[in-house]
């Protein structure tokens, strides 16, 4: 690419998805899922995030939660307050976001990662899978501006994409029982960060000293759906220094 800052994930604003409509599917009697497509695609996800914000800004009474995912928004409601059919017709009247003219992403977060070693025990396997050296693997992983498609699995866990095809290694067949907090992993075309120590099956390639979830903070979550992330490689000293700074800030 000729441009100084390659942006492989940048939206092409001139292209529209073939079908710009949405589909309502009930999720039990107290939630409805609004589907925008059937792919993990930045244009679909941009429409999802826009629509979720539209629903939230209606400030309808009896709406409990509005949750964007890769390709759909689920609206949870108090079934004593809303008839499912009434809510469906209200949702259908909201403007259908098109993939043209909407922002390709929110603010960009730069996340430092100490790659390899005990911090990224699967880096060498991933490099072998990709047919690259570990250094080339790191360069490729840090070359992409990723989109936060959604958060799930555990509080603050971001599903980021899309990972270059060459690095799209499937999950471990047997998940680890404990993945350290801050671990950066890869699962197929997605990359993610474990905000807290949990079991997990993603291929671990590094670790960030930055906390993604601070329970008692007034602003507990670092990332929101629709925001952008770029990783950069740091050395051990920088990792230890940053980890120390965040630990002190948390005291």
């Amino acid at each position, binding site marked *: 690419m000729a441009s100084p800052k390659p942006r492989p994930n940048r939206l092409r604003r001139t292209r529209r998805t073939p079908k710009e409509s949405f589909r309502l*599917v*009930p*999720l*039990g*009697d*107290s*939630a409805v*899922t609004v589907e925008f497509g*059937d*792919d*993990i695609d930045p244009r679909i996800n941009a429409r999802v995030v826009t629509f*979720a914000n539209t629903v939230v800004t209606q400030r309808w009474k009896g709406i*409990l*939660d*509005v*949750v*964007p*995912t*890769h*390709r*759909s928004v*689920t609206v*949870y409601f108090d*079934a*004593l307050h809303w*008839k*499912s*059919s009434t809510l469906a017709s209200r949702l259908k009247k909201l403007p259908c976001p098109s993939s043209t003219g909407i922002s390709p992403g929110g603010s960009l977060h730069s996340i430092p990662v100490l790659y390899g070693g005990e911090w990224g025990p699967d880096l060498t396997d991933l490099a072998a899978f990709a047919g690259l050296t570990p250094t080339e693997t790191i360069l490729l992983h840090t070359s992409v501006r990723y989109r936060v498609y*959604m*958060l*799930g*699995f*555990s*509080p*603050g*866990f971001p*599903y980021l994409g899309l990972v270059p095809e060459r690095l799209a290694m499937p999950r471990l067949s047997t998940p680890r029982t404990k993945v350290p907090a801050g671990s950066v992993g890869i699962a197929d075309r997605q990359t993610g960060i474990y905000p*807290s120590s*949990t079991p997990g099956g993603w291929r671990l390639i590094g670790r960030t000293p930055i906390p993604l*979830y601070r*329970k*008692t903070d007034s602003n*507990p*979550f670092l990332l*929101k*759906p629709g925001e952008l992330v770029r990783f950069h490689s740091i050395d051990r000293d920088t990792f230890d220094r940053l980890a120390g700074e965040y630990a002190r800030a948390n005291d």
Partner: protein
Amino acid sequence: MNPIRIHVAKPGWLSTVQDLGRYGYQQYGVPVAGAMDHYAAIVANRLVGNRDNAAVLELTLKGPELEFEGDAHIAITGADLSPTIGGKRIPLWESIEVSSGSRLCFGTAQRGTRSYLAISGGIDVPLIHGSRSTHCASETGGFEGRPLRRGDVLLIASRSREVLNSKRLSDQLIPCYEKSVTIRFIPGPQHNLFPATALTTLTSTSYTVTPESNRMGYRLTGPRIVRKGPGHFISDCTTMGALQVPADGHLILLMADRQTTGGYPKIGCVITADLPLAAQLAPGDTISFSPTTMAKAQATLREQRTLLDAALPQRRNFHKD
């Protein structure tokens, strides 16, 4: 008025602080949690003059031993875990005065699995993301993000000044917990990913709750449900009562502590009005699934609540929490 303290002499098998759940943060991956049996939790709160969403204790199968410091007004609902004070059985589904120094003990589970203990004023634990519910897996909310342990001391929020009349829920509104239940569900959202026979399979035989069941969900054994083809399914939102079908074809009924999103298709969702029945099941109990419609599901829930409101009105929200 001196605050009431509750000293945990024995924690019981799994005793957690719960309200009606943590909504508003699922977009950040924060699970809803909350009481498994909302009906029993709401009734317990109404019996002691609390708001429906006040924090209660959810007690599982083997209840705790609790010592009261200060006079309290309590109610126990849900499963009958043989509660006693001073060796005397105390009734469920009605409000009770407990004097300072009393010890509330629980024995064996007679009927049902989860019991709810409400104390007038509500349990005072910090609000985390707007809720007092405990989600043990993420160590969020409730009492230090975990089940109660021996030696813990629970504080009760200042008791309202109004005089509390003793209240009892009328018999016909008290649910009867059985070992074999019929539970209604709405097919979908992904029932189309399964052959037409899948719904027949689901509804023609009963499923058994396995020991690998907890507040996150129940693994069920019974006839396997198999997808039409391999086809891909992209993770999306889950809900309490969703019937997930993993690749092995063994159903998982998602409950209060479920993760916010999941990568397995959902063949159906249990109706809200029947979730309390599901919440009271234990391993070995069986479920027959019966399909219903959205309109019937919502009408049943409204009817259930109208009857409860007539018998025990919801407390008006005079004071801020």
